[in-house]
């Protein structure tokens, strides 16, 4: 049941026109440009949202345009693509709202243009209908992030940007190789429902290429090494953009490739799940431990993000339906949780200039709302019910049990303990303690710009709200998607 539709191309077109508009609006009118960006992102969301009903009914939309030989630019919208593109547009709008009052010091126009370009391309990545179209969007997105990392043009940020750039190029080359392998084996580069790839060295090579390319983007151990430097140097909104959206495109790519290029049978037969599993466990444990050791708040968040993305690949590697539900749900859960943490960190850095965790003691009295939201997100990350990550962990654990390897749950538990160990002290030293007690009387509103507060609030509410609704929509969708992959 395939129908050709105009929506995906229209959304891409609209966003690209907005990008041009933002660029030509110039440096002085950058604030107005931001509101136009939000309007355009929201419009795109509404346009895509009209398709929800049909896509939920099992329809898959495709559209092919003859503009990029030899394969053409193709889009495909199934539930996974639609859900993620809606999510990216939504989070993109929230981040742009945050950007309105974020002081970048210089280069507003450049930063904003690239910001929107990355959101657009991330949407393109998840809507792409074949490996080549995905490659196009993926590349534009990856390379342009370079500009955000180098934004401050300090020595350290230039170094971080180079590191990022070289690794990205390395990833692209491997991706290219992998697609070539796939093409030579099957003569097609599109998603397939039934996996037809034969086992063999070329297939293995292709799998490794994809894991390297997407894993690099997702910060999968041991390809994470660009992350902490880039995050430490990039302005906070750029870090949020990368952590919330770009990381997820890597995870999305892996999910797509595992299920719609190689297929479950091949995964099980070749034992690639184990490879992915080992890398994920490496990510989770190494990332958590590094985060624990890190003294700088943005860098701690970076390492923690690495651990969290490990959950997604962990669930993918189990190759059971429940575990995949956990992975998919974690995409939403992590966006809400980490988004809150990063935006709060950004608010703290903007307001007080403090980046070191040791300097944050007592900050709760200066910025009570920010730190309250930070604490909520910190508790979410530990996996307490009814917050999102509890649901992730629940499904991942069920998946692990289905796969007959109960002891792998201890990886998740260890990660939870470490999460508690590196987030909760920030929260309670911010509010409590003898020297803060005298400050309680002086508790004041923190006078953050309204746009920052709203964007933080939206994400923080997202950490907990889904559980209180009669239907947990992300969870239902994740179940539907996973059921589709495991028919």
């Amino acid at each position, binding site marked *: 049941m395939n129908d050709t539709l105009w929506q995906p191309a229209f959304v891409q077109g609209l966003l690209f026109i907005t990008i041009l508009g933002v660029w030509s609006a110039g440096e002085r009118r950058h604030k107005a440009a931001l509101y136009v960006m939000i309007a355009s992102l929201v419009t795109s969301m509404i346009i895509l949202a009209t398709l929800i009903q049909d896509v939920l009914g099992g329809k898959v939309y495709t559209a092919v345009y003859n503009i990029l030989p030899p394969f053409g630019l193709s889009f495909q919208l199934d539930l996974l693509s639609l859900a993620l593109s809606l999510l990216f547009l939504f989070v993109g709008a929230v981040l742009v709202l945050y950007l309105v009052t974020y002081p970048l010091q210089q280069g507003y126009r450049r930063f904003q243009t690239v910001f929107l370009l990355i959101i657009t391309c991330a949407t393109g990545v998840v809507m792409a209908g074949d490996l080549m179209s995905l490659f196009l969007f993926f590349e534009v997105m990856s390379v342009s992030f370079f500009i955000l990392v180098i934004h401050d043009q300090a020595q350290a940020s230039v170094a971080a940007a180079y590191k990022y750039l070289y690794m990205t190029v390395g990833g692209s080359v491997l991706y290219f190789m992998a697609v070539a392998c796939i093409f030579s084996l099957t003569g097609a580069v599109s998603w397939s429902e039934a996996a037809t790839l034969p086992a063999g060295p070329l297939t293995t090579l292709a799998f490794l290429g994809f894991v390297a390319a997407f894993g690099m983007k997702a910060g999968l151990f041991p390809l994470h090494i660009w992350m902490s430097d880039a995050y430490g140097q990039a302005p906070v909104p750029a870090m949020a953009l990368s952590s919330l959206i770009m990381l997820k495109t890597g995870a999305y790519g892996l999910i797509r490739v595992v299920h719609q290029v190689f297929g479950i049978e091949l995964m099980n037969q070749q034992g690639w799940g184990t490879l992915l599993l080992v890398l994920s466990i490496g990510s989770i444990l190494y990332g958590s431990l590094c985060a624990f050791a890190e003294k700088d708040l943005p860098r701690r968040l970076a390492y923690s993000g690495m651990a969290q993305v490990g959950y997604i690949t962990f669930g993918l590697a189990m190759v059971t339906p429940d575990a995949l539900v956990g992975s998919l749900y974690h995409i939403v859960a992590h966006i809400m949780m980490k988004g809150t943490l990063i935006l709060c960190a950004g608010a703290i850095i903007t307001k007080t200039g403090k980046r070191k965790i040791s300097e944050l003691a007592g900050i709760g009295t200066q910025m009570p709302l920010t730190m309250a939201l930070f604490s909520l997100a910190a*508790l979410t990350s*530990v*996996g*307490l*019910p*009814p917050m999102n990550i*509890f*649901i992730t*962990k*629940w499904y991942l*654990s*069920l998946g692990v*049990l*289905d796969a007959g390897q*109960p002891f792998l*749950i201890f990886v998740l*538990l260890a990660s*939870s*303990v470490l999460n*508690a*160990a590196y987030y*909760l*002290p920030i929260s*309670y030293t911010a509010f*409590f*303690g*003898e020297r*803060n*007690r005298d400050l*309680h009387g002086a508790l004041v509103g923190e006078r953050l710009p309204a746009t920052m507060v709203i964007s933080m609030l939206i994400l923080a509410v997202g950490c907990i709200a*889904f*559980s*209180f*609704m*009669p*239907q*947990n929509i992300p*969870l239902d969708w994740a179940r539907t998607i996973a059921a589709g992959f495991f028919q």
Partner: protein
Amino acid sequence: MRNQLPIISVLAPLLFAVILVCFYRGHDTFKKIITLVGSGISLLASLAMIPALVSGQTLGTDASFMSTPFAVVFQGDPLSIFFAVIFSFSFFLAIIYSFGYLAHSHAHLRYYSLMLVTQGAIVGVVMTASLFGLFLFFELMAITSYFLVIHEEDEKAMYAGSKYLFMTVVAGLGVFLGLVITYHLGGRLDFVSGGYISASPLASLALFAFLVGFGTKAGMFPVHIWLPEAHPAAPAPFSALLSGSLLKTGAYGFIRLMYFIYTPQAVRAANFDTVLLVLAVITILLGSALALRQDQLKRRLAYSSVAQIGYVLLGIALYSHYALMGALIHIFSHALMKGALFLCAGAIITQTGKKNVSEMKGIGHQMPITMLAFTLASLTMVGIPPFNAYYSKWYLAVASLEAGQGYLVAVLILSSLLNALYYFPVVVNAFFPERGKIGAGKISWVRDELPQGMVYSTAFLAILCVAFAFIQPHWPIVLAAKISTALF
């Protein structure tokens, strides 16, 4: 209407906490009224459910909340109601006591709103119809109680608080692990009398995961180590609740687990009951022995709680009619007596500022009512008839003999003896100090210089330690027997 009572008892305190936070503008009376009403509604709702407990009904509706991915359903079966009455009653009295105790303290809004939330959470732990609801409220309670433990915010409290928080997080993860395995095995998490999960290696793993989770909450050896830190650090009314109520949620978890989720075969196949029994015995002896060595009164009481929770676990682990009865009665009597003792300790600190037992010579003349209450509660602790704890020890002893494990009686007797050794000196010193030690001159009797709410709530708890013996029938025994009979 009766079927709405479980949900009212849980949500009323939570709702009033929200009202308090939203509308509190520093008015003392407003704060007191809102807190009392919120807590009182929950207490009344729990009391109103007692007829259902007597007739063995289950109250509640099928209305479900949340999608996490499990719905939370509020239902009260006899066991739930038994616990809910004890918990909400303890909270109500502790809140009255707090008005006096915290009058000169800071952060009132935080304290009272969190007391209400904690009350809602702890009643929620027992009033939900599945293990998942239990877990949900369990975690809520854990987080809010952290803020109450660190209320003083001095260095000791912060240290105790961190220790408590991290152990609680680990306990929560233990319960999580058990929960997920249980669901994997059974595909459900509700309570069915007799249990529905049979023996398997995974079931054993789940049981021991729960052992860590519920054991930590209950203050069982060797995961009791947070307890002696947290109790002295917390404000006295909350220490009373920690010991009298919060520890009992761990025991409640064990009861649900062993009698309603896992079949006795599964529990025995995992040797879970034996392990629990051994740990209970160690907990009793170690707690009593360590309590003997403490000079700080609240620390002594904290270790004594460790010992007392051992009795409860012992009763649960023995798996028989009388043992469970003993455990339930002991939960009831310990909530009263340890509540009274902690409130006394708080009263002493408030009036005289003295924390150590060695400084308390002759204190009975300064605060006679408080120290009389302390005396009553101490007598209960030792298990002298007709005080409440005598009955629990009696049933536990009977059950031990029935199970053919006579040495357990020796453990109980030894522990009672130790109780006497560390409580009676306090009492004796308070009323009959050695002459010359507190200066020459006549000893004059004065009244307790404390807010009336503090004195009366303490005295009330202490009187209840013995009053039930003079009411026929002895209600706690009747109710515990009903619950226990339904299970065996």
